[in-house]
């Protein structure tokens, strides 16, 4: 009765729906607000804005610093994705198919970067790169991002690899394929959803990473979140609203892609 709306009693039902509506609005409020604000004409972020304009978008795209940060973010995210998949793929195979002792422990080790607070990873890696003189390089960004992206990639690939029946791969071998050919032609296509999901996760983790990037950044090499962070600490200019809106757009896009992939999986499954 508490889980069947019709038997719930109108007062309780309306009360619950009303509360839920308010909470859903609360969840949407900052997202919708920031998108509207990026088109508002007020420098001081007055709301509702006195007029609508695209000038903050012009400022954003005309500013070489913002553009450089977008480019750096893209470079770092793409390299992170490639490295995370390259490292995560063999790891997932070993963890799923290997029979060696201590696999649980190793699995725990590989997921440890998800558990240790980001700040601590950031400070530890920062100390290392400070000693090596690598802070403020593309390398330091990619390495630190791969550390936190890797668990997501490994888990996604493991999940789809577990669903894959290995006897299909064996059948290919029996039919004359080499093991490598079989893995490449049979197993990889079958686990592609997991690989794509893992790659998407890695990209998103890197793209949105703030704490690690702030520690690795130099005044000349900044990712988009670092540029937002440093600008934010000086003033609340609407240009940040533009950057935020573009980030929100990207999140929506990735959500739609993920949903489409899921739907296709359900159909094929």
């Amino acid at each position: 009765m508490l889980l069947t709306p019709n038997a719930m009693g109108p007062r309780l039902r309306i009360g619950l729906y009303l509360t839920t509506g308010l909470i859903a609005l609360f969840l949407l409020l900052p997202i919708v607000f920031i998108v509207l604000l990026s088109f508002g004409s007020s420098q001081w972020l007055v709301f509702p804005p006195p007029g609508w304009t695209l000038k903050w978008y012009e400022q954003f795209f005309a500013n070489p610093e913002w553009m450089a940060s977008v480019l750096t973010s893209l470079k770092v995210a793409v390299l992170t994705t490639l490295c995370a998949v390259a490292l995560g793929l063999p790891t997932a195979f070993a963890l799923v198919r290997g029979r060696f002792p201590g696999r649980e422990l190793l699995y725990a080790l590989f997921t440890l970067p998800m558990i240790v607070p980001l700040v601590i990873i950031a400070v530890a890696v920062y100390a290392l790169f400070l000693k090596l003189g690598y802070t403020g390089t593309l390398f330091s960004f990619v390495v630190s991002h791969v550390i936190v992206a890797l668990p997501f990639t490994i888990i996604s690939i493991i999940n789809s690899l577990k669903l894959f029946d290995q006897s299909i791969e064996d059948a290919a071998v029996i039919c004359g394929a080499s093991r490598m050919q079989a893995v490449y032609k049979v197993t990889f296509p079958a686990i592609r959803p997991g690989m794509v999901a893992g790659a998407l996760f890695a990209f998103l983790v890197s793209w949105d990473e703030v704490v690690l990037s702030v520690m690795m950044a130099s005044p000349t090499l900044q990712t988009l979140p670092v540029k937002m962070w440093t600008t934010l600490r000086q003033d609340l200019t609407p240009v940040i609203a533009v950057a935020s809106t573009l980030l929100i757009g990207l999140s929506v896009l990735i959500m739609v892609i993920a949903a489409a992939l899921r739907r296709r999986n359900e159909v094929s499954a």
Partner: protein
Amino acid sequence: MTTAQSSQSTHVAGAAPRAAGMASSSTAQRWRGFSNLLPALLFLGLFFLAPLIGLLMRGVLEPSLGLGNYEQLFANSAYTRVLLNTFSVAGLVTVISLLLGFPLAWAITLVPRGWGRWLLNIVLLSMWTSLLARTYSWLVLLQASGVINKTLMAMGIIDQPLEMVHNLTGVVIGMSYIMIPFIVLPLQATMQAIDPMVLQAGAICGASPWRNFFRVFLPLCRPGLFSGGLMVFVMSLGYYVTPALLGGAQNMMLPEFIIQQVQSFLNWGIASAAAALLIGITLVLLYFYLKLQPESPVGASNAR
């Protein structure tokens, strides 16, 4: 470099034949496939484990050998205030996000599927939206000349703008907002698994809706409430971005403290001690989380 790496990984992945019986020694057979782990293991060892251990060592090595840093962490009143503040903010955020997440999860479970899908999408959208974008938005919304203050003043509820940023209020609002999805998702899964008939049975046996809620529904939700709440508490302890932007100097939390000690004061000893404490608490709480997880009555009955 990356293509070379990935083609190599393909090779190693393929070089793990499973066909049994050919191995000469059983040890070789047991360790077969282990080599596939080596690249990632090497990477994590070099860039994650070694620096982590290095960092933790500094707490007992710098400035002099001993537990001086740990003593200071608990003796200095400014430091203990940071600890206290970290726990109270995390606790407050957990309670508020549980209170807000519960009705949402409940509604998602019982409304018609289409509506539930939409509500869930809102939760996911909020979760996947850039953390900085959301925090910036709250910063603008909550500031003295922001919409919320303006609206409240126009409605005549307040005469002077409320101070809602750079203090505890700002941190708690911003962080609870961010944590709601992490309550809703596990809690909704738990509620989904509850058989509505159980609640019907409670009603038929004469339980009032109140009694049914507190004696039947809430206990059945406990696994979800518990795992969501614990997860949110742990995550809140380690959060940096939102407290740093929405909080004030008065209510610094451990993560901000660690970064400040490293970047502004170059005091690696105390930062390391604080980091060790944070990791210790996190691991202990996660241990309980994993320990208590399988005991969930709903999860167990639902697994079949």
